[in-house]
């Protein structure tokens, strides 16, 4: 922004240019309340923040209680393994994004089961039907979106994520669309925040696009 040396600086309430003889100066606009020294800024309505929900044993996510936060040890030790239990031919896939901005999709349907490796372990990997997230390098991870396809319309399928301390995060889903974005996982200063989404999409790619994943990463060529 260009700095103007001549325009009045109304935000500097304790300095004012002295008008010349005969000059007519419009009164300065009132300073924003936050800069007022006389009275405290007007208080907005108080926002009640929900206490952070932790995982001790079994955490069941629902529309009423959609979010849990893993502690620093749960977020960084061992792996977080997701499995599906229940009706239909449900299958898991996952959009991932690293802090550096790289993003991709792990999906059996696309025949991409790996993501970038640390210590020769893909940070997100599909092993048979289980989706494993390696947590040793959790600080490289920005976010994940867990997607479920092939759900049943009437009977719910349970998505269960298990931690190294054997705590679980669970969420139930039915076929509201061909692909359901089940859980969103965000790394916030070393803690994983997991939120139930339950939004439907025509495909995994459409879900990833709706959440703003730019799928730039290409898997290594398989021989």
């Amino acid at each position, binding site marked *: 922004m260009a700095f103007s040396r001549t325009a009045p600086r109304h935000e500097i309430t304790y300095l004012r240019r002295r008008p010349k003889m005969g000059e007519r100066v419009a009164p300065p606009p009132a300073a924003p309340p936050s800069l007022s020294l006389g009275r405290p800024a007007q208080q907005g309505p108080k926002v009640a923040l929900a206490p952070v929900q932790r995982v001790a044993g079994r955490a069941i996510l629902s529309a009423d209680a959609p979010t849990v936060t893993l502690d620093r040890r749960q977020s960084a030790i061992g792996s977080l393994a997701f499995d599906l239990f229940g009706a239909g031919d449900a299958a898991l896939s996952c959009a991932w994004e690293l802090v550096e901005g790289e993003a991709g999709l792990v999906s059996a349907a696309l025949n991409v089961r790996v993501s970038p490796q640390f210590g020769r372990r893909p940070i997100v990997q599909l092993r048979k039907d289980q989706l494993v997230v390696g947590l040793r390098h959790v600080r490289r991870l920005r976010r994940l979106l867990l997607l479920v396809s092939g759900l049943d319309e009437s009977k719910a399928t349970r998505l269960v994520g298990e931690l190294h301390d054997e705590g679980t995060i669970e969420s139930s889903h039915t076929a509201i669309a061909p692909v359901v974005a089940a859980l969103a996982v965000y790394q916030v200063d*070393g803690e994983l925040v997991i939120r139930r989404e339950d939004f439907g999409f025509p495909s995994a790619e459409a879900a990833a696009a709706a959440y703003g994943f730019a799928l730039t990463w290409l898997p290594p060529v398989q021989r």
Partner: protein
Amino acid sequence: MSPAAVKLVRGSNASLSELLPILGTVVVGFGWKVIEGKGPVAEVVPSAIVCDAAGLALSDEHLVFFNQLATPDGAVQYAEGDDEQIEVDLAAIPEGVDKIVFVVYADPDLRQPGNFGAVRNAYFRVCDRSGSELVRYDIEDSSDIDVTAMIFGEIYRHRDTWKVRAVGQGYKTGLKGVARDFGVSI
């Protein structure tokens, strides 16, 4: 070069209070080499557990590692250097703390978690703030593939002084076993 560094062997100890003119911050350094095979590599993670007189962690937040960088009082902090370093401000350690235990574990990833059979040339050393080595313990190579966590050493209170001991104790129960012994929930 620091020819004055005291070399420790397993079970021996040295007085930090005698080696340091003023008791302040010391830097605990860890190093190792992991032999790589074809599969996943053992991910070796150093940590420190701050313990009370009963030998238990003061709280779950008193485990310092890459994702929990400092104790609540700030006396023990994760730092960069060696392969890994942890800074300890001996002057700032609260009264209730009796010892700080330095544990290195192979990350328990479901996919071939790795073990100390692949770890070579591991060492544990205590330096002063300028980086000169005060005490060094070269850990005896273990070919035991069952060992998945190891206590390298500890800094502990002895009467009114601080001492360092070379421990070199392997755990076959991994980080979970260590956490259980020190009362940390993992």
